């Protein structure tokens, strides 16, 4: 007589089970995140926030100190950087001989959608609410939150940015058949998004023809929300509009990623 449960898991149970793999993998690499979550924001803040900030007139950045201006965007851009690691190589490798964890999970009660949800749970919930939260905490020591405890919402904004981007990255990495193109995401998405989303200078300073790209960037919407939380700066759009845009990207991305992973794993 078996002691193992033979029933099909609920979607929530199944996603949690798939998430546990990411957690087990994270336990092997968590020390690497000490740099991205702990040291990197300090380096940014000392070199750019304080160093470059000494040359910037506060009137150019909405009456804030430059360190106060960039802090919320840094919290959100760390979320984007982490996605570059969490949703590209591990997703591609899930179908290949770099572990092939999706192929392994396919032989279990988990369905392709469960695998997607488990991976997203890690990238959209676990990572922002641990690593981005640590970034926010480290930055707090620089006194960059004029709005006090409202800064907690910057972490939620970072999670929203992750939610908007993660499924699309999953979709993209699941569509690749060749690992030679994996680094493209850093050259053509992660770095440009990080540089041109109003994190380091007001997006309105960008040339007019590039403005639509800024508006399209999830990081810009997240940064606007985060800055409203940390410094009480009125965002470019009503907060609900920023949230709706990020939510729309998240939902459409989830459907695209679901379609792709089902296509890859139903033989």
């Amino acid at each position: 007589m078996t002691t193992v449960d033979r029933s099909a898991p609920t979607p929530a149970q199944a996603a949690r089970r798939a998430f546990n793999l990411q957690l087990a993998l994270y336990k092997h690499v968590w020390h690497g995140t000490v740099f991205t979550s702990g040291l990197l924001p300090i380096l940014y803040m000392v070199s750019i926030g304080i160093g470059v900030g000494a040359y910037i007139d506060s009137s150019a950045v909405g009456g804030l100190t430059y360190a106060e201006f960039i802090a919320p965007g840094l919290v959100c851009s760390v979320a984007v950087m982490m996605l570059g690691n969490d949703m590209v190589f591990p997703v591609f490798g899930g179908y290949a001989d770099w572990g092939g964890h999706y192929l392994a999970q396919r032989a279990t009660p988990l369905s392709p959608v469960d695998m997607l949800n488990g991976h997203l749970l890690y990238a959209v919930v676990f990572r922002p609410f641990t690593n981005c939260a640590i970034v926010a905490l480290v930055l707090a020591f620089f006194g960059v939150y004029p709005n006090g405890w409202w800064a907690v919402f910057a972490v939620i904004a970072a999670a929203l940015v992750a939610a908007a981007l993660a499924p699309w990255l999953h979709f993209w990495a699941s569509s690749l058949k060749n690992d030679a193109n994996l680094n493209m995401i850093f050259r053509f998405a992660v770095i440009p998004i990080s540089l041109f989303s109003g994190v380091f200078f007001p997006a309105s300073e960008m040339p007019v023809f590039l403005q639509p790209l800024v508006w399209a960037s999830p990081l810009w919407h997240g940064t606007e929300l985060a800055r409203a939380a940390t410094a009480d700066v009125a965002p470019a759009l009503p907060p609900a509009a920023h949230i709706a845009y990020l939510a729309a990207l998240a939902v459409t991305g989830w459907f695209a990623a679901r379609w792709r992973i089902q296509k890859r794993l139903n033989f």
Partner: protein
Amino acid sequence: MPHDDEILVRAADLRKSYGEHEAVRGVDFEIRRGEAFGFLGANGAGKSTTMRMIGCVSQPTGGELEVFGRDPHTQGAEIRARLGVVPQDNTLDGMLTVFENLVVYAGYFGIKKKVAKVKAAELLEFVQLSSRAKDQVSELSGGMQRRLAIARSLINEPELVILDEPTTGLDPQARHLVWERLFQLKHRGVSILLTTHYMDEAEQLCDRLVVMDEGRIIASGSPRELIDTHVTKEVVELRFGPAHTTELAELALTLNGIGAQIEALPDKILVYTDDADDTNAALEARKIHPTSVLARRATLEDVFLRLTGRALVEDEA
């Protein structure tokens, strides 16, 4: 139709097409509880596709399939909860340790961590990898990884273990170790379903098997039944120095009347016979002197050759 609990898998006119290509062309078979059942065939014969349908990761495009009396289309998760799968590529996680691979996999089946750890330790003992528990998978040899994949497939106490070419790519020593563990599993009463293109593997492990070719089952039975039904008791292999395909085909014509059947292969001629001594005497009488003569008992390889007209290994490239 009431489900017979002793029949784990039942397929009737099972089909699978990918666009125009028909990979499985209407196969019928039953796999019974406690038996070791094999799918034998060259690459592209349709055996892996059939296994995927049984494993509920590929939907049939025609016919009927029941696994544990359930419908794979609507009850895939419940079926997979009762299966153990050893895929050809192992799909072990190289970043995790040997032990973690088992514990994490157990989690997919809803097995609590505490129980999973006990099971993992037992299974590593079973596959003789206890001393490597803390090593990363990437540090293991191919044979060890295969044994770990077998251990992983048992973590959920499956009623049927599916092995896709369990010893492909392993050296002879590693193959024998894997076979030995699979024998142990059989003795424990675990039902086994395997695909292979190694005839010796099929003969060693399978109680019953089907031979597949171009998406169809062309023969079925126990290894002994297949040999008795389709080939003679013995085979005499004749080699004629550097003679090759065309020359051998011509030489084969001169052997007419010797043995029950003559088969010319690219490098040798096979004479199917019930008495190798008689065959040797007949060769001597016709003054035919091959450079080497090897008499051996007939195997499943010969069955495949007789049924399909070609050797299994020809299609491997």
